């Protein structure tokens, strides 16, 4: 099977071309040992199958970021039979840079001038034949959003593979040879031939190791671009300036308000998408429980096992589907924002605030999504292009109380401290969330973000595009399917373990209760009774299980069933009264802080692991949040003791 590598700068329409080319025959994962997404797919043309590798988008082939390193390493591996270089026709002056950076590699190439429609609308005429003649490789104009053009693309790819053509390196080197400040010929003679790089390219790479050389080299590459474009591109007019919407959208204050407004709208749209799916999720336990229970009873299945099947499994399905519904909705809404080009504006206006956390503007979207569901925030971090900053964003997402926590905590607070108290607790939560994010950033940023990556914003603000629905829907569905499979497995496993521990096997209390009684003296130091501590632990599985567990432990009911039957986070009147009788105010205050800043639910942790594949950093993050939440609990409990 022949392999085609897709190479292109961000915003060149690479992912939409990849989707159009491979359709549903694609596999999304991570590059081995890396936090960067690996996309691979296949397509068939005239009975022959071709493999397509979507290399991570970057502005050049310099090995600066993790993305660029992956791209460079892949090219050096020689696995690609053809490199298809994608450029934005409406911004050729800049986007051809990737092409000039590629010149000198001994891999056959095809140049795809994408977004020809946008170029035309901007009054830019590109003479494709002239360009092809100048460059000596096949060149084609293309519109990735137009499905009718893919037949022609496949044909071009196939013919570029059967008659491979490489770019003549002298096209570029003549500018280096003419430069008197560098002795290029001598540098070329020092190189050894062989491998993927021509001697000349190896010399250029050597040159670029010094600051002066890099600057000269960059200049020469753009000289070549200018020269190529002078003869093959005609521009009718030049537009420089902001359109009316951007004047507001990028304004100093108005920009933030517009961005917040659009994000709120996006979240609302996400809920519209998510609601029907979540509705199905809610129905599952109700629909499945009684038939399964009847089946188990008629088969005389051992009670604990029967309970596991008719209580735990339907509820696990319900949790997973509800979460996936929400994640799907949020992913969809934010994919639209990214696709139309607005995401870059959001990053721009929130850049200063995010820099304070060692991040970049794009992280703000993840954080806002997390207020609904942490898992959505984790999935949303994909838009962040620096691996280190993405990782840090995910860790900071864990600080943010999700929708469930945001409804549980004020409810508990209202029981103990009344409505005014609940409001104060909410304010306190907000302040501590900011503090927690800052603290976590201080602790983790240095290790996660390499010095080279911690630089300020260097970003292109792409022109606005019409959303490419087909591509967005395909990406969203693929992601949702992936999340569902993984989340279901993880949550089932964790639930099984929790069930084993919490079920009353011998009739004299579960393992959980046994352990709880033993560790009670320790947990009381943190301001928690052992029942509360067990509820705290169960909130790491799902936040929703919290009230059920605490209720069951205090009323000696079946903990396992109570924990999993937590369909609503509602609270019965009797329970509120009971809680006030068994839990003191200082304990309650400490407990609320503990559950709000506890490690997020298992699904979020699993989703984070799925994104970054680092056991070490997940473990460290879990430990950090455990320590942080217990410390908060301890502090607020002791403060509470002074007050009451």
């Amino acid at each position: 099977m022949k392999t085609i590598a897709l190479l292109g700068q961000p915003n060149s329409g690479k992912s939409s071309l990849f989707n159009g080319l491979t359709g549903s025959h694609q596999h999304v994962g991570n590059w081995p040992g890396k936090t960067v997404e690996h996309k691979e797919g296949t397509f068939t043309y005239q009975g022959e199958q071709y493999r397509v590798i979507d290399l991570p988008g970057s502005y050049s082939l310099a090995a600066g970021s993790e993305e660029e390193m992956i791209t460079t390493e892949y090219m050096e591996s020689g696995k690609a039979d053809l490199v298809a270089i994608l450029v934005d026709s409406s911004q050729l002056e800049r986007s051809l840079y990737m092409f000039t950076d590629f010149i000198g590699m001994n891999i056959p190439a095809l140049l795809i001038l994408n977004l020809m429609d946008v170029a035309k609308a901007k009054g830019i005429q590109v003479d494709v034949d002239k360009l092809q003649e100048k460059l000596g490789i096949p060149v084609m104009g293309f519109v990735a959003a137009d499905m009718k053009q893919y037949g022609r693309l496949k044909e071009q790819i196939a013919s570029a593979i059967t008659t491979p053509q490489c770019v003549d390196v002298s096209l570029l080197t003549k500018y280096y040879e003419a430069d008197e400040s560098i002795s290029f010929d001598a540098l070329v003679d020092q190189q050894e031939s062989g491998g993927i790089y021509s001697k000349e390219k190896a010399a250029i790479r050597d040159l670029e190791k010094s600051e002066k050389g890099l600057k000269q080299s960059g200049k020469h590459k753009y000289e070549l671009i200018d020269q190529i474009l002078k003869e093959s591109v005609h521009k009718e007019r030049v537009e420089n300036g902001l359109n009316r919407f951007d004047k507001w959208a990028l304004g100093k204050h108005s920009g933030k308000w517009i961005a917040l407004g659009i994000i709120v709208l996006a979240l609302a749209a996400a809920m519209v998408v998510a609601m029907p799916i979540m509705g199905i999720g809610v129905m599952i336990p109700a629909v499945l429980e009684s038939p399964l229970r009847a089946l188990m009873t008629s088969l005389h299945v051992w009670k604990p096992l029967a309970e596991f099947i008719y209580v735990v499994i339907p509820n696990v399905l319900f949790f997973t589907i509800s979460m996936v519904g929400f994640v799907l909705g949020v992913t969809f809404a934010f994919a639209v924002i990214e696709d139309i080009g607005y995401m870059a504006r959001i990053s721009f206006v929130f850049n200063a605030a995010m820099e304070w956390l060692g991040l970049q503007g794009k992280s703000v979207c993840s954080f806002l999504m997390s207020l609904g569901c942490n898992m959505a925030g984790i999935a949303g971090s994909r838009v962040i292009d620096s691996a280190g900053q993405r990782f840090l964003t995910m860790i900071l997402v864990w600080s943010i109380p999700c929708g469930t926590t945001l409804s549980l905590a004020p409810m508990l607070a209202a029981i103990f401290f009344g409505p005014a108290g609940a409001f104060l607790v909410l304010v306190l939560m907000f302040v501590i969330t900011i503090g927690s994010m800052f603290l976590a950033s201080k602790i983790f940023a240095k290790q996660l973000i390499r010095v080279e990556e911690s630089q300020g914003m260097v970003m292109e603000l792409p022109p606005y595009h019409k959303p490419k629905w087909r591509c967005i829907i395909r990406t969203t569905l693929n992601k949702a399917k992936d999340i569902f499979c993984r989340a279901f497995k993880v949550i089932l496993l964790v639930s099984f373990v929790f069930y084993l521990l919490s079920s009353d096997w011998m009739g004299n209390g579960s393992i959980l209760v046994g352990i709880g009684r033993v560790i009670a003296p320790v947990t009381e130091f943190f301001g928690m009774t052992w029942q509360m501590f067990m509820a705290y632990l169960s909130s790491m599985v799902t936040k929703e299980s919290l009230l059920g567990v605490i209720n069951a432990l205090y009323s000696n009911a079946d903990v396992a069933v109570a924990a999993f039957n937590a369909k609503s986070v509602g609270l019965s009147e009797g329970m509120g009264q009971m809680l006030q009788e068994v839990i003191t105010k200082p304990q309650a205050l400490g407990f609320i802080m503990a559950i709000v800043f506890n490690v997020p639910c298992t699904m979020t942790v699993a989703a984070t692991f799925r994104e970054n594949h680092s056991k070490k950093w997940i473990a460290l993050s879990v430990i950090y949040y455990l320590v942080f939440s217990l410390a908060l609990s301890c502090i607020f409990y002791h403060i509470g003791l002074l007050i009451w």
Partner: protein
Amino acid sequence: MRLADAKAGYTGKVCEISGNLHLLSRLIGIGIVEGSDISVVQNYKGQPILFYCKDSMIALSRKDCEGILLEEEQKI
């Protein structure tokens, strides 16, 4: 004049860029080399600077703009 100090509407040619290798390669990758034409679109305190360069609108952090020197061509 430093790009960091250029007001909106200022148009000029880049005459010097400075920074470490990583920053330089990022700048070059996005189109900023000696000789590039830049026209400043927006420069508010506390925000990255917005400018046109090689047909694209670029946002670049203030700190990095301090190392970019412009030679004035004409004022619009």
